């Protein structure tokens, strides 16, 4: 498959993801353009048969992390140890169908970057744990624990609001 055939159908997804990382439409557009440029240049190194979607999302993320906004986002990141995680919050007690979209979007946007990106890739992009792990260059175990924590944080945020 050509680069165009692989990459073009992903433009809406990449833009949406970039929008959630940067929080700003113009930066998101720049980020997607830059991602496509880098991917196009690096396409020769992409191995056929491996996961293209995870590959290009990884490029987008790495590009974001070295941008000024990305550096600021990671600098403000509290260091949290994934292994200390204890499951909390009972999903049953939540009536999320009443949660309005705006509240949810706020809650997602307020997540620290490392949780936001896992949640978006898994739930918005419907990536498998393995794909998420490839896109973020983290082990699958870390994907599951961060995902659980991200969802718990969102739930708690919604609960606090009522």
């Amino acid at each position: 498959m050509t680069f165009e055939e692989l990459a073009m159908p992903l433009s809406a997804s990449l833009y949406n993801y970039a929008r959630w990382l940067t929080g700003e439409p113009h930066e998101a557009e720049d980020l997607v353009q830059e991602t496509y440029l880098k991917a196009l240049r690096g396409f020769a190194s992409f191995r056929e048969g491996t996961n293209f979607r995870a590959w290009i999302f990884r490029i987008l993320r790495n590009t974001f992390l070295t941008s000024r906004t990305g550096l600021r986002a990671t600098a403000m990141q509290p260091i949290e140890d994934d292994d200390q995680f204890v499951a909390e919050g009972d999903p049953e007690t939540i009536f999320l169908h009443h949660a309005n979209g705006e509240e949810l979007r706020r809650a997602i946007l307020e997540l620290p970057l490392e949780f936001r990106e896992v949640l978006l890739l898994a739930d918005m992009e419907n990536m498998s744990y393995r794909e998420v792990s490839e896109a973020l260059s983290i082990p699958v175990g870390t994907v599951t624990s961060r995902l659980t924590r991200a969802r718990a944080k969102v739930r708690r945020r919604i609960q606090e609001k009522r």
Partner: protein
Amino acid sequence: MNEHLSAQTIESYADGELAAERVPDTEEHLRECAACAGKLVAQMQLKRSIREAAWTMPPHAFRPRRRWWPAVAAAAAVLAILIAIPRSNSELADLHTTILASANPVDVISTDRHTVKPWFEGKLPFSFPIPELAATPFHLAGARVVYVREEPVAYLMVTKGAHRISLFVGRDVPSPRTDAFESVSWTRGGLRYVAVGDVARTDLEALRNAF
């Protein structure tokens, strides 16, 4: 009855990630245990709500516009043609013109509604029926997702003879203000449909009746 399912098991199951050998026992437990089944439903609801929320653009972070990438101007110009990232405030008529002028007007090229409908899955926070057009003068040519007012909108390209019609379907699609094209809008199933094209108004009304 077996022990209750762990939160982690329920979450993995909802994500379709539970190891295959654990699925039969888990499903058996879910059939018998209302408490665990309730938790699973809540988990799936959360996942769906997050998905729907995330597919609508996030609120703006209040930051001034900044361009911090060194311009790779020539390459960017080439790519800009390839990648028309839809601008948020485009009017539908502009979008119609831009898409038709593009080298790759649609992301999925198909005349088959059974291909196009599932293609939209996961790309839009809503779904809508695509009718069989065989008995009409219209043909489905392809589809893509566009952004209108920062909301994802389904775009269907429909042809009638040599004419190409843009059909936009979304939760809040504005009617185009233009004299350059004909347009017909309608609402069905809580969604706005807007057809734009350089065809007779009666043609667009016929398309509306087909949907």
